[in-house]
């Protein structure tokens, strides 16, 4: 079958509603494969997600993760929202500068966000104001770095016994 099916009318509805409600804070939107991506700002990300949940029937937070855009020196937050009744999924994105990586927590609206935000803190060093228990979730507690940032090396830099040059690492 074709690689994907686009739900253009649902996408347009979401774009129209969000632009009407948040105006210039909806920076841009694009479609990557079958999924609508909405770029917004840190200021309104929480309200946008809340609006999607309450007004647009996006009842399920599929995933939330951090991003590190090393070329722009920013950290991003990506949320995947899903509407089970409408069979529709969208992605929300927002970016903050690397030196001040703070987002408002989403745990007050979705319990799932609790562990997802801890993971984003653990691996990217994104802080969430208002999170009830923001500490590392997968790495050990005294881990010295945020390992999924692009500047963290893949291989342990102290090892001398491996030559992986042929695998392009």
């Amino acid at each position, binding site marked *: 079958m074709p690689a994907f099916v686009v739900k253009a009318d649902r996408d347009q509805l979401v774009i129209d509603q969000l632009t009407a409600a948040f105006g210039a804070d909806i920076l841009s939107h694009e479609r990557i*494969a079958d999924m609508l991506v909405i770029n917004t700002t840190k200021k309104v990300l929480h309200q946008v997600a809340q609006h999607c949940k309450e007004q647009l029937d996006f009842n399920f937070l599929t995933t939330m993760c951090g991003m590190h855009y090393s070329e722009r020196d920013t950290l991003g937050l990506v949320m995947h929202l899903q509407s089970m009744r409408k069979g529709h999924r969208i992605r929300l994105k927002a970016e903050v500068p690397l030196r001040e990586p703070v987002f408002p927590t989403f745990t007050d609206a979705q319990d799932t966000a609790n562990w997802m935000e801890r993971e984003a803190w653990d691996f990217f060093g994104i802080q969430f104001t208002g999170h009830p228990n923001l500490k590392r979730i*997968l790495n050990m507690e005294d881990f010295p770095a945020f390992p999924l940032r692009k500047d*963290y090396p893949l291989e342990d830099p102290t090892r001398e016994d491996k030559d992986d040059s042929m695998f392009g690492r």
Partner: protein
Amino acid sequence: MAPHTPATHGIFQNVLTLDGEVIRSAEQTIGYIHRAFEKLAERRPFYQIAPLTDRMNYCSAPINNMGWHMTVEKLCGIETPKRVDYLRIIVMELARIADHVICNSVIGVDTGALTGFTYIFQQREAIYEIFEESRGARLTTNMGRIGGFERNFNEAAWAKLRQFIKVFPGKLQEFENLLVRNRIFMDRTINCGPFSGERALAYGFTGPNLRACGVDYDVRVADPYCSYNDLDFIIPVGESGDTHDRFMVRSQEMKKA
């Protein structure tokens, strides 16, 4: 409770607050087996990531494998032929059965009934023999390729598949007869760990665990991938979301598969 293993390779630590023998609260420490697939994937081509996806759930390795290939096809806009789609469905449903066999037989072991486990596991072996025949590997098969498969099913694999389809329903029924209406099993699973539909959605349940809570959502129907829309099948849904319902949903799903 120290790092121990509530399920194989799923170890986590439970930090408990006790009041005598009553557990007042528990906090989980997870992450003992975090393998940093994301970091590994940062600098590798798409096809080198495929073997990693098998390891995400090694009980049903081909499903995550196919998921990865379909994602890449989506990104590149590759259209797959019907034959690939149907072969994928066959492989994924076999993997689903293998996984549910593990879940449902091991819940029997955990509640004190080892016998059913030893019988139904022969059927899991039959599935792995089909994989072995077509691919040469059993557990982590790395079977798919972007746009299709590494190789076709051969005649022996089809023969084993036909044999499996003939034998399995009877064996599953035999296994269920041992457990479903068993008084001890019922006592130990009914009303054990129930979840409401709303709570399950808020906690991000998916798959059979969500359906056991009475939410009739199955991605194969709601957002069909891989030509699942060509097929006609029934989605079993539970009611109270307790362990017994989770068991029954998985059991029914095996029959529908």
